[in-house]
């Protein structure tokens, strides 16, 4: 005979939670899953930027001509802050593609959540909280390693971390909107995003070499990427100078992308979950 399970039933309070609390409940759901599955992401979110730092910063850096990098820096030091936005974009690419599609198509957890008083917009907000916590933790872990190998030249890199997280959030919000629009479960759309957006952006948007090395007609494309703005900010924060005017432009651009992504994502979530 099956044991009887007693589920305490609380009487309905008759009112729903506010937006902030609802989105934090969504965050709690993400954490409840992650607590059991975190091991699978340790390497890709913390190990990978460290690997780039060691292989490219130390290994490739040993081959770099003296004076080839602006500011008379060693290549390792030059690379260290730029890997913060680059790593954040990588993490965002992982967190905001398949997991989002899964919420609609495989685990269908978004349908479950929105069957409660939580709205689609609040689910988006909760996903962004989750992305924010992932970016902060992996960025901080990277900083510890970067400091240990002597790649950090000053405390300004803490500000670089903030800019790196902002870059990842801006790109991630746009990706969430995109992933919420993907209907096919084949994953081809994401393969295209990785190959035609993430990889070229990682290679050409200023992380590994200044974009002044690119032909003049390609540079405007780099200016459009969140990665380039993030890289400029992250390097400026550590090495200076960070003049007010241009800094505000970079920040404003990233914030604009973030807000656009949030609005688009809320719209796409509403369309997919309420119709």
């Amino acid at each position, binding site marked *: 005979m099956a044991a009887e399970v007693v589920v305490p039933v609380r009487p309905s309070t008759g009112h729903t939670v506010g937006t902030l609390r609802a989105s934090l409940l969504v965050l709690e759901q993400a954490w409840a899953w992650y607590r059991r*599955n975190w*091991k*699978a*992401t*340790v*390497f*890709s979110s913390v*190990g*990978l930027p460290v*690997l*780039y730092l*060691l*292989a*490219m910063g130390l*290994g*490739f850096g*040993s*081959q*770099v*001509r003296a004076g*080839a*990098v602006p500011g008379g820096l060693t*290549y390792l030091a030059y690379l260290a802050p730029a890997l913060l936005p680059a790593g954040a974009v990588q993490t965002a690419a992982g967190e905001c593609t398949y997991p989002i599609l899964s919420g609609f198509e495989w685990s269908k957890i978004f349908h479950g959540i929105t069957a409660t008083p939580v709205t689609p917009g609040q689910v988006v907000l909760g996903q962004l909280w989750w992305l924010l916590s992932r970016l902060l933790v992996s960025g901080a872990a990277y900083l510890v390693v970067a400091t240990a190998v002597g790649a950090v030249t000053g405390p300004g890199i803490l500000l670089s971390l903030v800019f790196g997280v902002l870059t990842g959030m801006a790109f991630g919000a746009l990706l969430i909107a995109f992933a919420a629009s993907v209907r096919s479960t*084949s994953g*081809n759309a994401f*393969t*295209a995003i990785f*190959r*035609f957006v993430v*990889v*070229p952006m990682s*290679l*050409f948007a200023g992380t*590994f*070499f200044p974009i002044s*090395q*690119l*032909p003049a007609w390609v540079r405007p494309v780099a200016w459009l990427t969140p990665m380039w703005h993030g890289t400029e900010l992250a390097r400026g924060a550590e090495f200076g100078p960070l003049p007010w005017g241009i800094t505000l432009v970079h920040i404003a651009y990233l914030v604009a992308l973030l807000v656009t992504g949030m609005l688009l994502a809320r719209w796409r979530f509403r369309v997919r979950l309420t119709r």
Partner: protein
Amino acid sequence: MAQHVIATSPAAALPPRTGLLLRVVPPGLYVGRARTLVRRAMLTNRRSWLPVVSGLVEPFFYLLALGVGFGKLVNDVTGPGGTPISYTAFVAPALLASSAMNGAVFDATFNIFHKLKYVKLYDSILATPLGPVDIAIGEISWALLRGGLYSAAFLGVMAVLGLISTPWALLAFPAALLISLAFAAVGMAATTFMRSWQDFDLVNLAVLPMFFFSTTFYPLSVYPRWLQIVVECLPLYEGVAMMRSLTIGGVDFGLLGHVAYFAVMVVGGGVVAGRRLRVLLLK
């Protein structure tokens, strides 16, 4: 009205067991029909050609980044015989070897695992006359066809950009296939031990550091002596060294050592994969 013709193939219609493999492998494991699996792969990929074709583009982004970016930061590299070669010519063969490895590992782990655990493709195939050895040969052939396409395209671009300086480069194509085959065999063997997607982070953990540290972007002399020995044992290092000697010169008998290394991987991986697939699928 269209009529469906269902081809029935009774055991009597199977080809007679004449080939060596057919006589050596126990009956039921292999019926010499691996090509039907390749045909199936082509059919299923007809609608999703984008990932297959876009895989061609990725290495060119890397070559471009090398020429425009990384190459400008470093001096020329000393090639075989002391002649200076451009940094791009130094890295390109390493990228060729790495992309052969990446494609094969990705195919043999993620794709096969998906078919093994979720689509349960092989269970349905085994309900037909085909056996596990047909499956293994069929899957590996498809992976090699894809990998071969990428390698040929990459070599073509290297030739156009003037990154090849010896006729030995003609052998770089079969060499790329050998690298793919070796990594596919070992990858497939590893896949049969995987329990869930969580285990796949281990694949990345093996492949990515190998990609970065197998002298892809800088010469072996960067490392201290003890680390050099470790690196020299890595399979990708073998592949990179082989490709470099074939495209920029310096071919000697060491080449046979690389070939032997990969032959061991092919045989070892193949035997383990075959055994494990039998256990997983037939028991």
